[in-house]
Structure formats: structure tokens, C-alpha cells
């Protein structure tokens, strides 16, 4: 799977420049996913992809509503105001929400102890090494995911935020960078980010299940984050074509390869 992605990336780099640009942005986890998916388009398409970094879901949706970008991958669906502006979810994918670490051979964790680890000032791995957690801003889309999937996480996160020694990563990339950099780190992430960005991080099994597409599909691994591909009311043709590709079997295969499974089609849901 990694090889295929690499090929696509190489192809995208070698393709001639065209006049039409597809401006995209959103959650950090999609920063590398979007080029991989875009590379699956017909090479003859005279469309160029420009991923605007550091927009985040809110910034991306705002930019989309102002037509500053053409498509956004958000960690949340549009709210009422955004829907009134005509924004629409065209594709929704689920990717396993994972806990990652820089430890070479991480131990598995129980879902019930996650909150305690975040809460305890001196939480330790089984070998006695300190668990160095990394937080995300309150406004980040990962924060409600964590609170939702792990019991007791709201209070645990509040307690962790009160500590000054806990780093807070503004973007998904900053988060992954910190997790890689810190020894014995523990951070939340998504399988798609880890996969697409080829991070030097190890996935931590939860309740004895290693996060994977299969485990997610089977329900053995229930922890996931949904990414929404959103277009404005009046999408550009390039955007429409890109969405159509994603929805195509090739596109879906690419999604799967990048750690995502399509969970719904807006038109049918």
C-alpha cells in the first residue's frame, strides 16, 4: 500500500502544470491524504492541487464559505450557519483514532485507564518510564473525539491542561512531530495521518486490539474519527471531479490504503 501511494506521489510531482488550481485545506490529518488522493485523478486533468496548511476544520470551513478554498476536509460536519451558506458534505470517512508513542515496543492500554494516564501527574509505562502526554488545543477537532471515546476524559484533559509541563500541539503535524521527538511519548492521532505521513511512531493497542481498518470495520476497534469532505454550494469543476474520484472505487481504495473507510455518502444518507 505504501508503494502505491509513493508512486502516485511521484506521478503528481512529474505532471505538467495546468492553469486550474484546486485549493484545499482543513484538518491536519488530511494534509498528506489530499495529495495522495489527488494523485489518483486522471493525469490529463489540467488541475493543480494547493493544500493550504494550518487551517484546521474551522478555518477550512470558514475559508470554504468565503470561497477562499475549493474543498475542505473537516473533522466536523458543517454547523447550521455553514449549512445555510450551502456547504455540503460530499464524502465522510472514518479513520481509526489511535494513541501513538515514540516507544519502540509500546505496551497495550485499556480504554478505561486512558483517562487516568492523562490525569495522573506521574503516570508511567510498565517499565517505570514516565508517560509523556501531548495535548491538543480545546478547539481542535481531536479534543471532542477523545472525550467521546474514552470515559472520564473531559476531566482528565482539564487536569492535564492545568499542568504547565504538558506540551500543547497546535496542529496535527505539530502533534506528530512532538510525539516523535519526545521519548516515551503518548499522543492521540489518526491512522490516516500516521500512514500518510509515515511517522516514526508506534500504534498502541487498546483493549488488546491494534488499530486497523479491518479491526475498525469489524468493530473490534471501536475508536474512530470521522473526516468530512465538504464542498461549497457552488463547487468548482475541479472540486467536483476530485470528489467524484474519491467516490470512485479507485478513490475508495486509496482511502482504504491511507487508513480510511468511507462511511457514508451524503447523497444517500
Amino acid at each position: 500500500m505504501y508503494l502505491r501511494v509513493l508512486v502516485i506521489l511521484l506521478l503528481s510531482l512529474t505532471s505538467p502544470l495546468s492553469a486550474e488550481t484546486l485549493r484545499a485545506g482543513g484538518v491536519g490529518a488530511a494534509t498528506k491524504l489530499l495529495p495522495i488522493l489527488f494523485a489518483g485523478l486522471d493525469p490529463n486533468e489540467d488541475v493543480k492541487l494547493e493544500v493550504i496548511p494550518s487551517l484546521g476544520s474551522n478555518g477550512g470551513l470558514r475559508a470554504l464559505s468565503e470561497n477562499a478554498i475549493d474543498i475542505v476536509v473537516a473533522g466536523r460536519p458543517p454547523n447550521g450557519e455553514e449549512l445555510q451558506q450551502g456547504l455540503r458534505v460530499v464524502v465522510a470517512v472514518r479513520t481509526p483514532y489511535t494513541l501513538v508513542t515514540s516507544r519502540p515496543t509500546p505496551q497495550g492500554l485499556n480504554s478505561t485507564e486512558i483517562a487516568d494516564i492523562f490525569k495522573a501527574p506521574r503516570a508511567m509505562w510498565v517499565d517505570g518510564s514516565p508517560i509523556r502526554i501531548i495535548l491538543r488545543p480545546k478547539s481542535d477537532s481531536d479534543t471532542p473525539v477523545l472525550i467521546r471515546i474514552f470515559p472520564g476524559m473531559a476531566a482528565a484533559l482539564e487536569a492535564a491542561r492545568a499542568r504547565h509541563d504538558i506540551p500543547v500541539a497546535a496542529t496535527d503535524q505539530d502533534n506528530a512531530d512532538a510525539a516523535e521527538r519526545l521519548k516515551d511519548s503518548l499522543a492521540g492521532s489518526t491512522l490516516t495521518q500516521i500512514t500518510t505521513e509515515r511517522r516514526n511512531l508506534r500504534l498502541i493497542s487498546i483493549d488488546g486490539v491494534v488499530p486497523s481498518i479491518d479491526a475498525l470495520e469489524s468493530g473490534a476497534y471501536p475508536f474512530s474519527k470521522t473526516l468530512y469532505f465538504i464542498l461549497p454550494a457552488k463547487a468548482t469543476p475541479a472540486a467536483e471531479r476530485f470528489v467524484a474520484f474519491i467516490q470512485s472505487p479507485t478513490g475508495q481504495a486509496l482511502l482504504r490504503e491511507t487508513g480510511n473507510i468511507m462511511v457514508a455518502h451524503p447523497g444517500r444518507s
Partner: protein
Amino acid sequence: MKPLSLRGVVTAIGASVALITAIALPAGYLASNYLNLSEHLDFKADLNSSYLAKYINSQDTMWRFQRVRLAELLSQTDGADTNFRKRVVDSSSKVVLDEGDVPDTPTLVSRRPITVAGSNVGHIEIEASLRPLLEDSALIASFSALLGLCIFFAIRIFPLRILDRTMGQLERSNRDLVQINGRFDTALNNMSHGLCMFDSEGRLVVKNQQYLQVYNLSPEVVKPECTFLDLLKHRAMRGYFNGDPDVHWAEMQDQMKTGKPATWVDEYGNGHAITVTSSPMPNGGWVVTHEDITEQRTVQAKISHMALHDALTNLPNRLFFREQIETRLGQLGRDEKFAVLCFDLDKFKSVNDTLGHAFGDELLRQVAERMGKCLRKGDTLARLGGDEFAIFQAHGGQAEDASALAVRLIGEIGAPFDLDGHQVVIGVSIGIAIAPRDATESDQLLKSADMALYRAKGEGRGTYRFFEPEMDRLMQARRALELDLRKAIVNNEFEVYYQPLINLQSEQICGFEALLRWNHPERGLIPPLDFIPLAEETTLIVPIGEWVIRNACDEAAKWPKEIRVAINLSPVQFKMRNLSQMVMSALAHSGLAAERLELEITESVLLVDNVATLEILHQLRSLGVRISMDDFGTGYSSLSYLRSFPFDKIKIDRSFVHDLQQNADSKAIVRAVTGLGASLGMATTGEGVETREEVDYLRREGCTEAQGYFFSAAKPASEVYNMLAERNAVSAVA
């Protein structure tokens, strides 16, 4: 300063400090913290504006959507302090970022533009709530208000409490001062002396009402600041100053310089006398007290007169008289003489007893008046007490002069006195002593005159006697006898002898007469006539007589029941009102039957306080005691005496019995008395029987009893039974 205004000032200060404290603290806190917050917000806004400008400059227009990155940038300035709302607004007034909770109102906002490449791309707002600051300020304001209140009370209450305490002490001091002043005024105006006080300049400072009254001064003149000289002049106008005021003022100043008090008496023409005491004061002034001693002097003179004069007759008394003699004796020149006459009024007592003391006093006044007429210049008449008078005859050195005066006095006093219609005749006995022949001391001289008076009284009264040295010797002997007599009672030197009384029909002893004997330890047996008169005169007869009665009763109780005992009673014993009780006690103690006791009295008994005496006699007779009239025929022998009391027996005096053989009159008297006794149912006893003829005559004349040496002399009690036995034997032979 008035207390009220001081209180107001303290209150104002307290209120000001309290107000400043209550307002300044929260206001300062609010202001400083507001400025701090404002500066802090401005600083954060500046810093964030700078961060954002740099970031935006590196981005394109897409910066407006890169919220995550913008939020990260802005969070760098948060540190631990996150209570801010941060808003990034682009140039089109669209909110690009709104981080942080909406702060509670009211809020403070710091706004800074975001300038990139010289263009304003928007601005950043840092907003913070002012509510915590306001709440803190309100809390501090509450504490400040409380603190201010405490300060107010601390400043107002404590100083005012001290002030009140001080004012209270001041008021108490004032009250005390007023009270002391009141007391001082009261004391000043209630003292008996006049008082005035002058300062060092001689100005009047203090005076009391008595000062005005003493000198009859005007209060219009005598007032503070009035000078001493003015006062002297005013007193001179009122007749209370002698001499020149200027001179006295100068003298006064000189006297004050000595620093010593001075006292003198001022006497004025109006008879007033005032004691003045002037005392210098330490400050240079002086205090003068004025005591009106006019009345005091009068009283003193009166007291002196009373001390030396008799109140009844206004004559000099013994003290004054004695001083006169003393003085005269001291002044007596060589060959000079004078006489002292002491005299008692004869029968004065009976006047007092019969007419009462008021008449007695009047009699004494009239006597003094008459005596005064007999005196010559230089002579002094004095009343020594009672009816005793004395005359100091200045020119009585010759016996003739004294005799002439005595004769004049006897004549004057012997003339009848008219006491409120009562014609009273008394006499006077006079004793005369000549100084310095008879004595060189006043007491001795009076004593000598007294002894002469004693002699005059003893020799018939109504006469005068000159003192003789023999009188003194006799008097001393008499005094020695008196002392022995007193000791005799204590030493039990008396003894009762018994002389038998003979029934002339049976010539048996029917009784004994108890006769007192004195066994003097040095002089031997002393006959009754040598000491009984003295015992009566000194009233020692009372205890002696009681002893005789008790002793005789005790003795007689041992005799045969038909034998009586006769005991003599002195007139002096009748002055003892409880005589009958004493006799009763003696009878009870001895167990002697009352009818065996015979008490003998002489006529002289009935001469003294007749009524009382008769009452005692009746009491005795009612007990069963027999009463005999002793020595009948020697005195007045008034038959009224026999009628006044039912005597049981009449004892015919020995002088009649002794003369029976030689004197027909005596026989007639004996016959008459025995006849009288028989007629009145009274027994008769012939005394002093010494011969058989006398016994026989008495028997023939009807006399019932006899006693005398013919039968037996008086013998000790131990001889009574022998006498009884001998007499029975004799009568049996006869």
C-alpha cells in the same frame, strides 16, 4: 477651649481619617489594578499584534483562515494567565479568531492594529473582565469602611474618653473646691472671732462677718482691696481705735517684719475689750483675729467674785477671808496686831428646823447686815459656812478693842429679828484670836479663834472667849481621845458591866442595868463620863450603842427568864432612823424576849425632833420593849414629857436619893415622883442607893426598885450569876 468645640474637632479628625481610610484604600487598589490590567492588556495586545503581523506577513490572504496557527501564536503570550478573550478582526471587520470565554461585564478592552507591510490588515482585541477587580475592590472597600469605622471610633472614643475623664476630674476638683470654699466660708463666718487677712501691701483679702460685728463696721467700707490704714480710720470713726492710725500702721509693719505672732488687748472708752492676735503669713501678708472679750471679762469678774464671796450674803467667803488674813499677816509690821473673831449663831438650827430654810437664809442675811454695821473701816466680815461667821478686825490688836466689838456683836445679834412677821431671838458665841500672838499663819489663827469659840459655846453661849494655849492642849487631848475611841471599836476594847436592879418589896434582883466600860490599853479603865460625851459629839455613840445593845441582849438571854436588862440610849442614837429595826434585830439574834429589855432615855432625847423620837419610842414599845425615863428631875423635868409617852418606869436621879437624909426637898421630890409614877401606873427606880436608910425610905415612899452601891457596883457579865446567888442568899437571911 470649650469642651464642646474640642469634642467637635476630635470628631472631625476621626471622621476625616476614617473617610480617607474607607475611600482611599479601595480607590487606590482599584485605580492601581485598573492601570495594571490596562497596561497588561496593552502589552499583550502589542505583543500579539507583533506576532500576528510577522505571521501574516509570511502568509498570503489565507492567514485569516488559519485559525489554528493564529490561536497557537496568541497562546504564546498567555502563560498561566488565560482569563482573556482574544479577538482577531480583519480589515473588513470580520472576526478571524475569537479565543477565550466571553468575560463578565464590565470589561476592559485593549485594541491594537495589525500592520503588515505598512497596511492595516486588521486589529487584535484583548478583553478582560473588570468584575474580579471590582469585586476585590468592593471587598477591600468593605474592609476599609470597617477599618475606617474602627479608626473613627478609636480616634473619637479614646481621646474623648480621656478628655471626658479629665473633664470629669476637673469638674470633681471644681466641686471639691466649691465645697471647700463653702466650708471655708461657713467656718469663717461661724467662728466666734473676727478675722481679716491682709496681703503684703496691707490690702484686705479676706474678712468675716464677725469682724464687722466686733467693731460695728460698715460692709460698704470693709471690702476686699480696702487698705489696713483705711480700716483703722474707719474703726476710729466708730470709736474702736485709740491713737494715730499712721503710727499704728508703721508699728504693724515693723511687727510683721519680725515674723512672729503678737497678741494684745485693746480697751475702748465704750467699755469694750478686744483681744487681737496678729500672725504673719509666709507670703508677706498677715492674719488678724479679733475676739471681743468684754462679756468674757464681765463673766470672769463675776466668777472671781463668786469664787471669793458667799452667794447668800454677798460677804467674802472662807477662801477670800483666809487670803485677807494671809495678806495681812505678810504685811504685819513689828508691834502690829490684829484680831480674828469667829462666831456661831446660837439656836440658828432650831430656826431653820422650825421655820424652814428660807427663813434661815433670811435670818443669815439680816445677821450679816447687822454685823456689817458693827464694823469699822478696814474690818472684813466673812461667812465661813452655815451659821459660821468671822471678822477680821484690822485694828483689833488690843484685847479691849476685840472685846468691845464682841460685846457689840452679841448685843446686835441678841436683839429680836423680824422674819416675815416671825419674831426670832437668837444669840451668838464668839471666839477671838490675836495675831501674831496666838498664831502667825492664817489657818492656825482661824483654828485658834475656833477653839476659843468652842470654849465660849461650851461655857454657856451668848458670850465670847479669847484663845488660850490651854485650849489647844485640851483640844489636842480630845482629838487623841477621839482617835483612840475609833480604834477601840475595831480593837474590841469595850466591855459591858452590869449593875443589879433590886425589887424593893422582895429585895431580889429583878434586872441589871448595862453600863459601858472602856479598857484603854494604856490608860486602863476609862469611866463613861470621860468618853460618852465625845462619842456622842462625834456620833461614834451610834456604832458603840449598837454594840452595847447586841452584846447586852446576847448576855441577858442567858439569864433567868424573870431577870430584865436595862440599856441606856443616847439622843444621838435617835438620829439613826432605823433604831427600832436594830433593836428588833438584836432581840431576834439573841432570842431575848422583848419584855425583858428595858431602854432608858433621858429628857434630852425628847428635846431633839420630838415627833420623830416619839415615833421611834412607840415602835419600840409596840415590840414589847419597856421604856424608862432616866435621871428624872435633873433637867426640865417637864411633866408634859410623861404625858407625851407612856413610860414604863421613872428613874429618880441619884442626886435626890443621895440627899434624902440631909435635904427635905429631896424627900419631897422623891415622894412626889413615886406618887406620880404610882398614879400613872409607872414603876419607879431610885438610883445611887448607898445606905439601908435610903432603901427603906424609898420602899416606904412606894418606890418599886432601887439600884446602887448599897446592893452592888456594876460588874462584868461573868459576875452576874454570882450577884444573883449572893442577892438571893442575902434576901433569904433578911
